[in-house]
């Protein structure tokens, strides 16, 4: 099984002109989707690799979540009654549990979500509509998209 074609399209000296290379797509009259060569173009290719849409979406959202780890999401946090607030990077938390643990530690008190309690401070947030809401009702990812600032309220206020 002797291979008679000994060349490599990757060397600059011998380029096989009949092979459709990505850079030829501008010369071609064809406007079809040839595989893009730059990584930014690769991001938008919807038909390669050959996987089904559902898997493609799953991987895309996974990648966004992973990439989100690198983009900080700082929000202001106030404790009711305390004029000076703190700033917190929400992207460092994996979910509500770790957020509450961190806030409890930061403000040296017990901070919880949701249920009214005479002992614990309850965490609320201001969403992108400007409304103040209880933390914990919506999925974490959705919360990250809508949260603008946090407030730790005194229990009876809720």
């Amino acid at each position, binding site marked *: 099984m002797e291979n008679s074609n000994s060349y*490599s399209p990757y060397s600059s000296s011998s380029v096989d002109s009949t092979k459709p290379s990505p850079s030829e797509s501008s010369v071609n009259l064809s406007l079809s989707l040839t595989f893009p060569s730059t990584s930014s173009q690769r991001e938008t290719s919807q038909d390669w690799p050959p996987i089904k*849409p559902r898997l493609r979406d799953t991987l895309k959202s996974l990648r966004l979540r992973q990439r989100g780890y690198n983009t900080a999401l700082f929000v202001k946090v106030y404790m009711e009654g305390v004029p000076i607030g703190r700033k917190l990077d929400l992207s460092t938390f994996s979910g509500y549990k770790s957020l509450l643990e961190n806030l409890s530690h930061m403000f040296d008190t017990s901070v919880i979500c949701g249920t009214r309690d005479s002992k614990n401070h309850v965490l609320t947030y201001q969403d992108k509509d400007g409304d103040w809401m209880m933390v914990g009702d919506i999925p974490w990812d959705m919360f990250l998209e809508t949260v603008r600032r946090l407030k730790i309220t005194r229990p009876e206020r809720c």
Partner: protein
Amino acid sequence: MNYFPDEVIEHVFDFVTSHKDRNSISLVCKSWFKIERYSRQNVFIGNCYSISPERLLRRFPCFKSLTLKGKPHFADFNLVPHGWGGFVQPWIEALARSRVGLEELRLKRMVVTDEGLELLSRSFVNFKSLVLVSCEGFSTDGLASIASNCRHLRDLDLQENEIDDHRGQWLSCFPETYTSLVTLNFACLEGETNLVALERLVARSPNLRSLKLNRAVPLDALARLMACAPQIVDLGVGSYEDEQDSESCLKLQAAIRKCTSLRSLSGFLEAAPHCLSAFHPVCHNLTSLNLSYAAEIHGSHLIKLIEHCKKLQRLWILDSIGDKGLEVVASTCKELQELRVFPTDLHGGGNTAVTEDGLVAISAGCPKLHSILYFCQQMTNAALITVARNCPNFIRFRLCILEPHKPDHVTSQPLDEGFGAIVQACKNLKRLSVSGLLTDQVFLYIGMFATQLEMLSIAFAGDTDKGMLYVLNGCKKMRKLEIRDSPFGDAALLADVNKYETMRSLWMSSCEVTLGGCKRLARKAPWLNVEIINENDNNRMEENGYEGRQKVDNKLYLYRTVVGTRVDAPPFVWIL
């Protein structure tokens, strides 16, 4: 056999179930043709445009089950624009008008509507089984019709469809008296699920064997469902995000232990890493495991699960399992027949999760392996030659190297020799997908050795028309040929026009065929539908006079048909 009355011959034919065999017996003589057509129970139509419903009913007046496929395979990868075709409505209408006692309808890549589902549900009293795979165009309202009206429904199996979820109450449309459910798969629904209705339905379905939930079914509901369906054989887990050791988790573990019939596990659409361990007690019985959507689970957890799965025959997994994980599979799963390894990193970020080593390990460790789909970043001829030697029994071999034109990463040679070894060793190979750097040589090997090949997928491969000609001339049993981004042109397309009558279809996109060439083909072969899918506004192509030399802007799809040009093509599809 001529001395037997028809009833006896018919009884003998009852034992012949495969479509191919029944097609063969119908060709023996007129008498057998007649007996066969009246007794055919299951009809399979691989291309819905190859025949019309009227002709189907004329030939087979008494069938009970119909399988229809619409769009070409590459539609799965966004290559066929919305609206292309594959409408099931005319079929349902024709069947409803006839006297066929339809009991089962299986559709793949077709457009289904709520009206169609409503008509289906009202027209066939004994309707039992609806299987929709990769379909679109309908909503949960259509499912509500099916649930309300099909008294004898056994299977409602929705696999990877695009369904408009109205978050309605379709599950509560099953009457309280309805107890015959066997299969319920709604994993592809994106919206909320009425958990109360679902639990009541499962509780009153003693024959339920297969239950696949969507992501809106949380852990505590899953625990309750499994507790009232311990007879379950096939389970698709929806959402699994609870904290470890929560009460729901414990309840679930208790319920799972009672499911001694469980053989198939899938889903984990939103899964926390620790959740797999709850299923360890039933792993030793599992024959099928699909973790291809569990993108958040790390390889180490996957490996821990698989170590318990000694009887596994089918495994679908993500490449996060790594070569090390595949070595565990190779040493644990000696019964493995089918393996699919999907990519997690679509952008070639250098993360070499699985390589040729994993593939070689599997081939060495799993003697019963006959089907593989493997996505990877790199491959070598040496590895493929070893795989071919280890596994001469492949029926399906699909290798997708993520970067097009990528050569053997050790020798920088094309992968012709590796794939050549595969086709030479695997004498029963029916399906092949090739990738990586490939010259015309690989197609010479395929044409020479792949005598049983029925489906071939080519992407970014070959040098000249000779490549495609080797395949068309050599593979006598070819049925479906799909090619993208490869330098094959009019000469290859037109060399043997009669070949296409022996095939179901040919797809060529981003190749070198021209509009003129396609027109010549259409003229030479009136028994073919030659379609050009043209997504850009190129109606001016002909006016400019470039027609003959203009490359086909997008896609060529041709298929044999006995009913001529279809009438439902959208404006962007030119039928030549």
